[in-house]
């Protein structure tokens, strides 16, 4: 897929200029940088939620997205949240809920879940789309360490079972070092690609010291 943003502005402020990014199928890319730099804007453009920009996005295929907020429908059961939104079957929904470690929540309403559980439901919903391109916007923010690392392991398992192109927005280098094969560091106004790092070590072979060393590089 190819993302080209010639210009994206909010009012007078140009936040993206001449930004070009190509992502191969099943490649995983992290967009790393401080908040307000335009990472989320870029993700919204790719998701088709923002068309007020000059440029184009091609070859993304079917897209699924998990926001920082779980954005579940509070008035529908957890299972219905998956089936209604993605048109998957109830049994596919139950299977995905089991694979994010929540086999028993299908009949419950989302407001009975913790934030970590709701995020995992939101991740299951994204995979229920059978996406070619998976967009994740700070999916682990404000989770405690345990919940966060558990959910990151789940994401890697799910990607192994359902391969997809991944674009992950994060401000946390350790997350990027654990989860992706390529890290783009964004900085400046308008945002530029200040660093483009490719990691050779396969995601599955990274242990904690490797991840810490890689994160230090970023």
């Amino acid at each position, binding site marked *: 897929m190819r993302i080209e943003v010639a210009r994206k502005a909010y009012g007078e402020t140009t936040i993206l200029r001449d930004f070009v990014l190509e992502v191969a199928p099943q490649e995983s890319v992290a967009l790393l940088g401080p908040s307000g730099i335009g990472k989320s804007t870029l993700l919204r453009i790719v998701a088709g939620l923002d068309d007020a920009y000059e440029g184009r996005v091609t070859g993304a295929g079917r897209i699924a997205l998990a926001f920082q907020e779980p*954005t579940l429908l*509070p008035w529908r059961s957890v299972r219905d949240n998956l089936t*209604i939104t993605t048109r998957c079957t109830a049994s596919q929904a139950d299977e995905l809920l089991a694979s994010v470690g929540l086999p028993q929540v299908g009949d419950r309403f989302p407001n009975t879940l913790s934030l970590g559980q709701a995020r995992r439901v939101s991740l299951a919903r994204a995979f229920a789309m059978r996406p070619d391109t998976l967009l994740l916007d700070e999916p682990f923010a404000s989770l405690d360490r345990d919940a966060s690392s558990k959910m990151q392991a789940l994401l890697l398992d799910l990607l192994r079972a359902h391969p997809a192109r991944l674009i992950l927005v994060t401000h946390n280098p350790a997350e990027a070092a654990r989860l992706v094969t390529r890290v783009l560091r964004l900085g400046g106004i308008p945002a530029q690609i200040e660093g483009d790092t490719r990691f050779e070590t396969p995601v599955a072979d990274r242990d904690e010291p490797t991840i810490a060393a890689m994160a230090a590089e970023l």
Partner: protein
Amino acid sequence: MGDMRVPLLSIAIFALLWTLVAWLAASPATLPTPWTVARLGLAELASGELLFHLSATLARTLAAFVIAMTIGAVIGLAMGTNRAANAWGDPWLIGLLNLPALVTIVLCYIWIGLTEVAAIAAVAINKIPLVATQMREGARALDPALDDMARAFGMSRRAKMRHIVLPQLAPHFAASGRTGIALIWKIVLVVEFLGRSNGVGFMIHQYFQLFDVARVLVYAISFVIVMLAVEALALQPWERRATRWRLR
């Protein structure tokens, strides 16, 4: 069912005060006692008159209610989500909101004729701008994050309406439903008073001309009871169902 003792006691105190005032006034023609009214009510019920007129009024109320809620919701949703629709529609809405019910009723009877259609149209036209205003507020408060989510996942218009928009509007439907039904039946009575030959409003007209206060009260109180029953048996259960997800 919650504790009914306080409301029942409160009603009993009201009846007691009524009796006291009636006794002090000592003029049964102007203010009959509660038991006189109750006795007359039972007689009207036994003759079938009461039920006939109650059901005529109830049918008009429900017809006007359904029409006003539907049209008002469509208008409100359009105005709440579309800037141009709001700019064009707002002056009309303000005009209609300030149009006295009596004017609408008289004009409908003159233009459409002394018919059932005119009666129901007049009532609905009075209520539509109120529903539209309430629904516009609801539409403006729709969560943009949920809308983004629906777009990102390519949900159909139909699915969005059913699973995202309408559940968010449910509290506004409930609020305008509750105030709506209360307002509508009062206007229905005026409509019947002015140009129908059955219904509670018609009967009140009849007994007003005879200065029969007792029977005016019989019809008024009976219909209040019917509307309280509609609220308790239809509106409240629906609202509980629509908001059941809020319970943890």
